[in-house]
């Protein structure tokens, strides 16, 4: 009986957010008096397993085989389920990414086991694992437990810090074979336009967000644009030339409100909120965002919120630690300059 921590890999390296699964696994393993087994599939898994040891895995089960070189739900779930059958871990933990969600939910069906999804806190009581999670857009919290010998847990990004590193630790590593071959799959990946190096909103420590107010850019739109087209041009120019420089100084990701996305100011992958991404950065700077309840649902978990809005009555100020009432097109460049001066 161990606790499995699933480490996600991409292009022969561990996704750094995966180490958060080790942090969550550790809180369960300690309470149950057991250790952590890192589960690592894909290219270069032996080297990644060595890193997992430094983050506290006593052992690692790896599968570095052609059939597993690229993440595929069917091959990964089949092998994970077999390993759970064989090793009967008390828990299987992964970060709730698009992979982590589908992989654990599928293996939980294979193993007829309970799954607690998007957990933000974990504890063990009388030997059973209890996960706390947010519901109703964070207006309510709930606790869930599972009654099966193995409990599947996906954890919300940034809810569990990675464990401290012990550079001397060496895990025992076991190499296994794939459960099914990729030639048996009923689907093929034709293309992946990966943005390597792009900052993932869910992992970002700092987020600078823009809303509908981005359209009130004093920069003059090209003369041939008018009405909504001119608004879109001004807003896009603002995201690129006013918010991005601030984000660059801070190493931040760019977020947006739904109003900005729906108006065509910025692509949907930047949307924060109930029908966008749920984020919990250390610092969230909301610029020209009113702070509607559906937007709050996505960013209420931020540690420190800064609001810049020209309307002193905007609801976002109620949530903010610091507020500046003013025109974002004056405040943001001033803030960027002040930070540059301070950080250089």
């Amino acid at each position: 009986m161990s606790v499995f921590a699933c480490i996600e890999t991409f292009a022969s390296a561990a996704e750094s957010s995966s180490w958060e699964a080790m942090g969550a696994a550790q809180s369960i393993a300690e309470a149950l008096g057991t250790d952590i087994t890192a589960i690592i599939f894909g290219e270069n898994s032996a080297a990644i397993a060595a890193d997992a040891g430094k983050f506290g895995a006593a052992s690692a089960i790896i599968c570095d085989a052609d059939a597993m070189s690229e993440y595929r739900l069917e091959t990964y779930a089949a092998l994970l389920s077999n390993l759970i059958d064989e090793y009967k871990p008390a828990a299987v933990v992964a970060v709730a990414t698009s992979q982590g969600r589908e992989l654990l939910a599928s293996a939980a069906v294979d193993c007829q086991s309970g799954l607690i999804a998007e957990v933000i806190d974990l504890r063990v009581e009388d030997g059973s694992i209890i996960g706390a999670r947010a519901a109703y857009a964070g207006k309510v919290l709930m606790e869930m437990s599972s009654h099966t010998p193995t409990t599947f847990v996906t954890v919300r990004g940034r809810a569990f810090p990675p464990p401290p590193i012990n550079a001397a630790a060496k895990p025992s590593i076991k190499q296994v074979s794939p459960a099914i071959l990729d030639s048996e799959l009923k689907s093929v990946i034709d293309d992946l336009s990966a943005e390597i190096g792009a900052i993932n909103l869910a992992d970002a420590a700092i987020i600078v967000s823009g809303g509908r107010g981005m359209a009130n850019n004093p920069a003059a739109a090209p003369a041939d644009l008018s009405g909504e087209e001119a608004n879109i041009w001004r807003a896009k120019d603002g995201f690129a030339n006013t918010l991005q420089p601030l984000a660059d100084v801070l190493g931040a990701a760019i977020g947006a409100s739904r109003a900005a996305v729906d108006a065509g100011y910025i692509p949907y992958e930047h949307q924060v909120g109930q029908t966008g991404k749920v984020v919990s950065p250390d610092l969230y700077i909301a610029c020209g965002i009113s702070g509607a309840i559906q937007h709050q649902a996505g960013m209420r978990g931020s540690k420190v919120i800064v609001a810049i809005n020209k309307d002193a009555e905007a609801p976002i100020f109620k949530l903010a630690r610091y507020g500046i009432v003013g025109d974002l097109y004056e405040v943001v460049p001033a803030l960027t300059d002040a930070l540059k001066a301070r950080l250089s």
Partner: protein
Amino acid sequence: MHVVTFTRSTPDTAARVWVNDEGEVTWGDVGTVVNPWDEYSLEETIVQAKHGGGESTVIAIGSDLHNDALKHSLAMGIQNALRVDETGADANDSLVWSALAAGAIRKLDDVDLVIFGKESVDVATDQHTYQLARRLGWTMLNFVSQIIETDYAAGTIQAQKMLERGNQVVSARLPAVISVMKGINEPRYPNFLGIRKAAKAQIPVWSAADLGISIPAAATSALRYFSPPERETATEMISGNNVKAQAATLVDRLFAEKVL
């Protein structure tokens, strides 16, 4: 050719939701809406059924609370609605839920494609979709932002998925289960005629016996609901003679608070 979608009612996203003295979640007498993520899956179901020259069906699992979402789906233009309700089955557990859902899909027998919304806006577990696909043994494509091509005669689908690392294009064999993202389409509004037709519709209810399945034991239970701790919101409004002074003060504060 048959496209099926699942949906349910969720409290209006603007509603105040709280835990009452009995420890239950309530949103007072504010109404429910169709799960907002499902507006996109409902639209896509209508489009795909039309494209394949086949039928569209919407299914809700659970109590008659979900009739509102089913009626909204019918009003949008989904052809058939049904509800699976089994007293005694804990459909809040996703293993129980997926057993009932898979039973319904097997009973329909001719389903090519099942389309889900990304998640339920209230419980936001995003697990029902995968567990249904796994029980059926069908291909699963999550977070689809565009269906590039479907050929129901040949039994193929090509779709673009929106992943953390970028966009991935996948070709797969049908039958398949997919979940779709906001932005895949522009959901239509129900028109007056649709609303009238939906209001009159009788929605059949299937039990586990109708599906010919036995219900598995629930693997999980919700222990308790509680209110989140109040956010410490001592807002400091930063004023100053000019924006330069304000910006400098804000930077000082952020450094003092060690967020930078």
